[in-house]
């Protein structure tokens, strides 16, 4: 590989979560050196909880510990006044042509992809999940240079391989989705502080005041109620698979551990430094606690899908653990809300 090409100025950054990673790396490439993964996550109000009713994904409950795909990049860029270009395509040829054009310009771009056909992923991880993100930062003969933020190192994909994952099908089909920051104005500390405040306020709203009972902190209670019924309703085998799915959504690669709660704790720690406000640092501890509790619940759930725990009382105990987590998170967000930041 020729290391003198201009695109090599792009620096790969490994992050816990792919969309945070793309956001961080692309903004740093534009000169915003202060950008970190926790900051992108927090400004983008990334923390969430939802169990989408009546929907199953991979034959399990549709649960997410983070906000909807695409929102973090969009919100973080917007709050910093960064102009963004995003495109989707109805046909693969146009998508390829546009990507080639940006690569030739030397502009690293984010691409949404599906992981089922993503050749460098281990087979065990290749489900039909379409909200993975990676950066294309150059081309070397017939291979695209790929920076996948969840990986330690960069990799490559051939044109057919890349096109295939950009046109994966199913829920959240990427349709060749490509995005990148266009114009970056000078950013002051004051703008960063504003972005932090609006990120926190939006996250408080999403977790505490979202209508319905299946999202935000109340969504955790919703799942807790479901777990109590799963053993009778679905049978032990299926109920175990459902618990396994929760653990995967919570702990798998991309979460930073503890269902993104540690990542949010890290954000609040950074936020406290920017705002020079120790109260925020104290609330960071609450999210560390919540993350630890999520992990404790995962260990208990593992007892079920490993076949060690089989009784209804085990399901009840897991459900109770989730209720405790809900209280910790509810209180933490109420504290954040009570700070009246930005007022």
């Amino acid at each position, binding site marked *: 590989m020729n290391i003198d090409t201009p695109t090599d100025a792009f620096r790969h950054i490994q992050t816990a979560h792919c969309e945070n990673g793309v956001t961080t790396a692309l903004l740093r490439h534009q000169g915003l050196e202060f950008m970190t993964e926790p900051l992108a996550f927090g400004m983008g109000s990334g923390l969430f909880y939802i169990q989408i009713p009546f929907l199953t994904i991979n*034959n399990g409950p549709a649960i997410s510990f983070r906000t909807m795909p695409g929102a973090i990049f969009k919100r973080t860029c917007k709050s910093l006044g960064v102009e963004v270009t995003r495109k989707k395509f109805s046909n693969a040829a146009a998508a390829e042509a546009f990507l080639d054009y940006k690569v030739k310009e030397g502009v690293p771009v984010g691409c949404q992809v599906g992981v089922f056909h993503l050749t460098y992923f281990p087979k065990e991880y290749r*489900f039909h999940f379409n909200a993975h993100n990676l950066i294309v930062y150059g081309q070397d003969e017939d291979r695209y240079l790929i920076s996948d933020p969840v990986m330690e190192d960069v990799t490559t994909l051939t044109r057919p391989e890349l096109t295939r994952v950009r046109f994966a099908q199913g829920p959240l089909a990427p349709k060749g989705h490509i995005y990148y920051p266009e114009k970056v104005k000078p950013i002051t500390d004051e703008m960063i502080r504003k972005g932090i405040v609006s990120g926190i306020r939006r996250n408080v709203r999403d977790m505490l005041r979202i209508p319905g009972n299946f999202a935000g902190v109340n969504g955790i209670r919703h799942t807790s109620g479901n777990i109590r019924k799963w053993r009778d309703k679905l049978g032990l085998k299926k109920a175990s698979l459902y618990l396994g799915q929760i653990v995967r959504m919570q702990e798998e690669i991309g979460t930073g551990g503890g269902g993104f709660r540690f990542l949010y704790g890290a954000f609040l720690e950074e936020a406290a430094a920017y705002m020079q406000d120790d109260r925020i640092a104290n609330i960071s501890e609450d999210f560390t606690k919540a993350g630890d509790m999520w992990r404790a619940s995962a260990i208990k759930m593992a007892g079920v899908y490993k076949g060690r725990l089989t009784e209804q009382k085990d399901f009840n105990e897991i459900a109770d653990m989730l209720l405790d987590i809900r209280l910790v998170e509810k209180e933490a967000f109420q504290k954040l809300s009570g700070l009246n930041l930005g007022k």
Partner: protein
Amino acid sequence: MKKEDLPQEPGPLSRLTRELCYVKNEEGKYETALSNGWDVKKDALDSAWVGVNERIEEARQAVFNGEKSPIYYFMELRLMDVGVLSGYTGYFSIFTKRHLKPSVFKNLSERKLAKYASAFDITVSELKNFKG
């Protein structure tokens, strides 16, 4: 999670990469650390695959018994559901569901069979001749 508590228990992912996690250091501050994996999530992934393989075996049996068309088997083999499959073929779900019936399947045109075969990454003759 404290840095010293970060599990280092290799799983399938460690063939590709270690993953970045957020942990607390000795001073109680957050920093990042790399993990090789955690058995709790490895076991969750394993149990998901046990579930997948059972579904595939049931699908094979259903084709063998003449209850379902080969499309059903390959759909399960490729971890798809009707929605994902119809995304790849471009046929509406309602038609895809009909194509799962052996009686409808045997009258499918070559063109439709080719669409399905390409969605499954197999040849038309593999699709046609699958007997379970």
